[in-house]
């Protein structure tokens, strides 16, 4: 027998050269939806605090599929084990209608407007009009029944698609997969301490949303937050004010599969340091703020935690950027906190939804500080606006060249190891090593 022919189009070894077709091929993108977003992965849906009361819901997405995150009734004896959060697909089981059109609201049940099929909050079909037909009188004058669903029609078999749901510290994740491992195992022991650090034991307070549509492949956003090379070069505010740059003590962490990551760093005083500012045109030696309240950084007690990789020592990062494959970024940049949700829309476009939050224990001053620092982030942010811009320009570059081109991600070599510095593209390489396995490329 002949050996099976290799299906991979990925010509080079390893994952340090990413072919342009990985960003531009529509058929490949459809397979990504199936294997990644609808396959054995957990996708972020929203925050528990967005739906505080029974019946509260909001629309979200898993891949391109619109879903409803809703808080269901829970029997008292199940409250310890069931957080009551359900995620169901926004698609009627009857004729496929995307029936829910309010971005958020409160409902006792969901009703499709087309034929009034009615669903419980957990997605079970509660009932439908004329299921048992319409009573009438036959030509023979005897009572009869017109129409109705076939005998044996089982409501239980015709509910909404119900996703598996897990809630971690108020973050809601869902998956179409029956086989993916439990969420904490999926995220991995290396990443969990950094989620615990921000969220464990604290109630979130919702501050609001920002939404942007970015004309680039969804993976470029993941890469952007796995790339510690660019912030101190593209972002003037980071290099000038010492918020993020190559002379800082930092660490690149990833899970065992290399798909999730944490970029950890510690702010320094900024100003000139020739090893990282000489020749860097975005460094503005004379730059001063007219109103410094935007950078009124106040350290918070929870920033300091036992160092997960150095027993007996503690660590106090000022920034942790967490990428949870495939679609979530969790940001702590000094006092600014947000989740950023990637919603893909074809191979060349995605929506990027920012949800900013604080904690219920925050003083009014801390809330105001978080809101002021929000000027640095989001679609108009002093540092984040240019990320969306360069992603669009990257996609433009890939598109104009076509099949033969590839990106080069070899800062710090071609390996995929964790590092104690940020002069590396290791996290991008590790994500593509994993992506190659999943996609069979």
């Amino acid at each position: 027998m002949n050996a099976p022919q290799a299906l991979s189009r990925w010509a080079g070894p390893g994952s340090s050269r990413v072919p342009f077709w990985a960003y531009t091929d529509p058929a490949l993108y459809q397979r990504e939806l199936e294997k990644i977003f609808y396959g054995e992965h957990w996708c972020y849906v929203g925050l528990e605090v967005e739906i505080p009361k029974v019946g509260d819901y909001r629309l979200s997405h898993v891949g391109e599929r619109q879903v409803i995150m809703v808080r269901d009734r829970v029997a008292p004896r199940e409250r310890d084990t069931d957080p009551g959060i359900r995620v169901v697909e926004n698609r009627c089981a009857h004729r496929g209608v995307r029936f829910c059109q309010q971005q958020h609201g409160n409902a006792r049940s969901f009703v499709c407007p087309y034929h009034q099929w009615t669903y419980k909050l957990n997605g079970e079909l509660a009932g439908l009009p004329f299921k048992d037909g319409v009573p009438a009188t036959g030509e023979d004058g005897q009572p009869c029944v017109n129409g109705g669903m076939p005998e044996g029609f089982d409501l239980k078999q015709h509910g909404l698609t119900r996703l598996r749901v897990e809630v971690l510290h108020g973050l809601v994740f869902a998956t179409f997969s029956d086989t993916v491992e439990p969420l904490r195992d999926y995220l991995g022991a290396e990443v969990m301490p950094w989620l615990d650090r921000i969220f464990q034991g604290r109630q979130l307070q919702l501050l609001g949303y920002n939404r942007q549509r970015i004309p680039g492949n969804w993976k470029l956003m993941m890469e952007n937050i796995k790339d510690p090379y660019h912030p101190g070069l593209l972002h003037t505010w980071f290099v000038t004010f010492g918020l993020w740059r190559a002379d800082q003590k930092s660490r690149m962490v990833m899970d065992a599969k290399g798909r999730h990551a944490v970029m950890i760093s510690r702010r320094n005083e900024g100003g000139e340091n020739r090893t990282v500012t000489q020749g860097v045109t975005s460094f503005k030696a004379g730059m001063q703020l007219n109103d410094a309240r935007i950078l009124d950084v106040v350290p918070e007690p929870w920033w300091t935690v036992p160092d997960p990789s150095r027993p007996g020592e503690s660590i106090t990062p000022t920034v942790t950027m967490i990428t949870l494959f495939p679609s979530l970024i969790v940001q702590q940049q000094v006092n600014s906190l947000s989740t950023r949700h990637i919603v893909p829309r074809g191979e060349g476009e995605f929506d990027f939804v920012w949800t900013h939050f604080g904690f219920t224990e925050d003083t009014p001053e801390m809330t105001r500080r978080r809101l002021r620092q929000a000027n640095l982030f989001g679609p108009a942010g002093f540092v984040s606006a240019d990320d969306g811009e360069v992603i669009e320009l990257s996609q433009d570059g890939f598109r104009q060249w076509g099949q033969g081109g590839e990106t080069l991600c070899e800062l710090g070599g071609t390996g995929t190891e964790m590092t104690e510095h940020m002069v590396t593209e290791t996290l991008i390489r590790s994500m593509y090593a994993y992506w190659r396995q999943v996609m069979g490329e």
Partner: protein
Amino acid sequence: MLQLAVDRFNADYGAALDERRFEDWPGFFAEDGCYKVQARENFDRGLPLALLAFESQGMMKDRVYGITQTIYHAPYYTRHVVGPARVLGEQGDRVMAQASYAVFRTRPGDTSEVYNVGRYIDEFVRAPDGLKLASRTCVYDSEMVLNSLIYPI
């Protein structure tokens, strides 16, 4: 007539931005004036987050430095079309007004597109040299920012 004064103010404001005289922009505000660009969903639900939120002329000057010196972005022109103002009240030296706006974006070499649509919710203060904004909140309907928003609305 007050409405005429507000309309003239809005025309001058839009022209300054469309003509890229960004350094003139903070001068439309009182020294401690507030400027916000906020998504309608946040405004309607009482959520405080805004796309941009400045609390002084100083913060606005820092934004002007950002858009001219530090934020990397593909260049574009804006065109503000501001509807007639509705003057909604007067209290002492304060004037409350609102106006609908549409801002179009044109990138060099590209077609024009609807960029940001919403309304100004304004509080003016009467100053010796005319009206100044004590606060302007741009509440935008557009559910998605087209990639980034660099220049003021």
